[in-house]
C-alpha cells in the first residue's frame, strides 16, 4: 500500500490542485489529511470541497477549528487573525457542514495521525525542538506518529535505549526497534525555505517514508490574494517559503 499524508493547505487551491495531480502520478492507494484546510489563503470553500473528495481520512486543524467558531483567535498572530475573520465570512454552509465532520486524530496500522501534537491534540502545541520531541514520544504508543501544524518537515526516530536520530534526508527507511515522529510539512504555505508544496508518502512494501516536494503556481495564488486585498506579508511569503 502507498499512503499519502498532507496538511496545512490553508485555502491555497493552486497548491491543492498540483498535489491532486501528483497523487495520481504516484499511484497512491489511500490519502490522509492532517488538518488546516482553511485560514491565510483565498479559496477556503474550493479547498474544503476538494479535500473532502480526495482524502479518505480527514483531521481538523486549529484554523479549521477557529473558522467553525470553536475557538477564539486571540492566540493567533495579527495576520492569521485578519485572515481568519475574512475566512469566517467567506465559508459556505456546505463547507461548514463538511469541516464539522473532520476528526481530531486517527489511528490505523500502528500509525497515529494528529494535526498538532500527540500530547494534547486540542491544545494545538507546537513541536519545535528536541525537548518537545522527547516529551511527545511519551504520549503515543504507535510505531509512527505523523503531525503537521508548524509547516516545517522533519523525521526524528528513537530507539529502545532512548537514542534519538534527527534525519536530514528527504527519505528514511522505517527500521524495526525504532519509533518515529514525523512532521509532514505544509502543502499551501511551506515555511522551510522551499516554496514548493510538501507532503509525505509512505510505502508499506518498501517501508520507505519520504517528503515529496511539488512545484505549483504560487503566482496565481498570490494574484488572487492581492485581488482580495489580503495582507502583503501573507502574499509574499508564498514565493520564498518562509
Amino acid at each position, binding site marked *: 500500500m502507498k499512503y499519502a499524508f498532507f496538511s496545512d493547505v490553508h485555502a491555497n487551491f493552486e497548491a491543492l490542485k498540483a498535489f491532486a495531480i501528483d497523487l495520481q502520478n504516484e499511484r497512491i492507494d489511500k490519502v490522509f489529511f492532517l488538518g488546516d484546510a482553511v485560514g491565510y489563503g483565498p479559496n477556503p470553500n474550493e479547498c474544503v470541497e476538494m479535500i473532502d473528495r480526495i482524502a479518505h481520512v480527514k483531521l481538523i486543524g486549529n484554523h479549521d477549528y477557529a473558522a467553525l467558531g470553536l475557538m477564539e483567535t486571540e492566540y493567533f498572530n495579527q495576520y492569521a487573525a485578519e485572515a481568519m475573520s475574512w475566512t469566517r465570512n467567506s465559508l459556505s454552509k456546505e463547507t461548514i457542514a463538511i469541516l464539522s465532520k473532520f476528526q481530531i486524530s486517527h489511528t490505523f496500522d500502528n500509525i497515529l495521525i494528529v494535526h498538532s501534537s500527540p500530547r494534547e491534540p486540542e491544545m494545538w502545541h507546537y*513541536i*519545535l*525542538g*528536541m*525537548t518537545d*520531541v522527547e516529551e511527545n514520544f511519551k504520549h503515543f504508543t504507535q510505531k509512527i506518529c505523523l503531525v503537521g501544524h508548524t509547516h*516545517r518537515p*522533519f523525521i*526524528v526516530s528513537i*530507539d529502545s*535505549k*532512548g*537514542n*534519538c*536520530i*534527527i*534525519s*536530514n*534526508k528527504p527519505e528514511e527507511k522505517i*527500521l524495526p526497534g525504532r519509533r518515529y515522529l514525523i512532521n509532514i510539512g505544509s502543502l499551501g504555505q511551506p515555511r*522551510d*525555505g*522551499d*516554496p514548493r508544496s510538501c507532503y509525505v508518502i509512505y510505502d508499506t512494501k518498501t517501508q520507505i517514508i519520504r517528503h515529496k516536494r511539488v512545484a505549483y*503556481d504560487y*503566482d*496565481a495564488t498570490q494574484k488572487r490574494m492581492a485581488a482580495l486585498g489580503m495582507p502583503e506579508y501573507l502574499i509574499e511569503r508564498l*514565493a*520564498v*517559503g*518562509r
Partner: protein
Amino acid sequence: MPEIIVKFEDKVIERFLTEKKRVTIGRTPDNDIVLDNRGVSRRHAIIEFGDKQAVVIDNESLNGTFLNSRKITEEILKDNDTITIAKYNLIYHQEARRDLDAFGVDGTMLLETKKQKELIAKDKMSKKLTAETGCSILLGESGAEKEMFPLAHSVVTIGRSKLANIKAKGVFLSSVQAKIVKEGNDFWLVNIGKKGKTKVNGEDVDKYMLKNDDLIQVGKTVFRYIENRA
C-alpha cells in the same frame, strides 16, 4: 546530552543524540550509528562516554579511524572534534543543541538559502527587465536570435519566415508558426502553423494564456515568458 552529527561527503545526513555510556559505529544494522558503506567495517569503532569525557576507540577496523585527520587507535574527544570513517565525518558535540532544524549552516539549510537567493535574484531580474522595456518580454533561452524580445505590440508573430517578428529555427516549422496576442492585460499564445508545433512547458498547445516564467518552444527555439507585473 552529547550529540554526533553524521556527515557523508560534507552533507549532514543525521544528528545522533544519546544518553548511553557506549555507542557503537559500523556497517551492520545492529550498530547504534549505522554507516552503510563498503569502506566501513562491520564493527568499526566505539565511543565510550565517561563522567567528564568521551573516548573514541578504533575496533581494529580495516580502513582505520581518523580523528581530526590523524589515524588513531584510542583518543579522548574534545568538543567539535571530527572523527573520519571512510567517506563519513562524525562531529562530536559535548552538549546537543535542542532545536530541530539544527543543521544550521550545513546541508539542507544551506541549499535552501542558496535556492531562495536564486529565486529572489531571478525575480529581481525579471522586474528590472520588464521595468526597462515597460512591457512583458520573451527571453531567448536557446536557439534565439536575440536575448530579449519585448512584447510591445498587440500581435507578435513567431516562425521560420523573415517576415515573422521573432525568428524560430526548426525543419518542420511553418513560416509563421505561432502568434502572441494581447488581450487586456493577458498575453495569449496561439499556434497557427500547420506543419510544426508550439509547446509550453513541454506540452503542445493550441491556445494558451501565458503565465510568468513559462517556457515556450517553437521548433528548436526556446523562449521564457516574463510578465510585466509593474
